[in-house]
């Protein structure tokens, strides 16, 4: 039910918190290591990010991103290689996930 007070209150756009994710892949497991790959997923906009949409990493390292306000929510886990597969490579090994919460007027 809308009260009289609410009807007369000045109109304000409601603010919502939305999450932005930044994946940084590093050259070794230290957060200070060089960025060798990256991805962005932006919950605060409808902008799509995808393969090949950038030429330079947004930050040279996870540490640099932290100093710009990004919060680390996952660091790369390290497990010993399976016996017999010590020299095999597959996915990018040192994946860090960072987040930032931003205000948006999108519902």
């Amino acid at each position, binding site marked *: 039910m809308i009260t009289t007070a609410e009807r007369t209150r000045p109109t304000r756009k409601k603010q919502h918190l939305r999450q932005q994710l930044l994946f940084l*892949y590093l050259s070794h497991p230290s957060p200070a290591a060089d960025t*060798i790959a990256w991805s962005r997923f932006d919950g605060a906009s409808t902008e799509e990010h995808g393969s090949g949409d950038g030429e330079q990493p947004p930050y040279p390292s996870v540490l640099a991103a932290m100093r710009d306000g990004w919060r680390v929510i996952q660091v790369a886990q390290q497990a010993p290689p399976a016996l017999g597969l010590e*020299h095999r490579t597959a996915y*990018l090994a040192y994946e860090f996930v960072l987040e930032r919460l931003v205000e948006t007027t999108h519902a």
Partner: protein
Amino acid sequence: MHDRIDSRQAARFVADGLLRFDALVPDQLNRDVLAELRSERLTACRYNDARVGFDEYFADSPAYLAVLRLPQVQAAIAGLVGPEPEIDHCAVHTVPAGSRHAQVWHADATIDPRTEAFDIQIFYFPHDTPREAGGTLFLPSSHFRRVHEFSIGRYHNIVGQTPTVCPAGTIIIGHHGLWHCGQPNLTASTRYMVKLRLNPTVRQCGLFDRSDIDHPDVMSALQSHHRWHGVEARLEILQRLRLWRSLTGTNADVDLWLTRLENEPTRSLSMAHAAG
């Protein structure tokens, strides 16, 4: 013109997972293939379950067949997969004008556990492909990584990724494991690329011209670094060396990296003393 690629080319293929030949196909042949594509005589993705030969498989697209018979293409095929390879499938990639869709990174197709045998894929770009037309984005030296098709789709950009910006008639021959993805086509023209996968029918050893095998460019290629490998660079080099050994029948090595790993002496102390 040689009938097979040489050792330096083969070493670059082993290191990077691809060989690129710019503007290899003559203009008229490019135009003839484009006509086949536009009239859908060469179309879609066709698997060669019946295992028919090249003439029968490409009976409706003689211009594309002529591309495959160019001496440089034959030399690459002969040097990498050998005589009488079998067609696996041919896929025509058509990206409409104005398409903003960026395909996610992937490798073709399922995880492939083979360590020595490999297929090749021939990527043919029949018209000029500027960056705004997309082209295929490749990640050189990703071919040893065991991933399952789109399971790498979370990655957007990787240092060293290389868009295929090329003149008409360019051909890239890639290892089956090479990571790649199609790019948006922001031009007003349809973009075409024809991909053909070939399977070897012989053991891939001694196939390329080894008269230059001692050329310093060979070992230089096998030891080359890609920044995105990071701390895994030596692991990639070990895998290159193992494949190179298999392709050449040699015990090639870099600074004893493989040799020391293979060193598990069986000679006892008493035998050593007796010998001394």
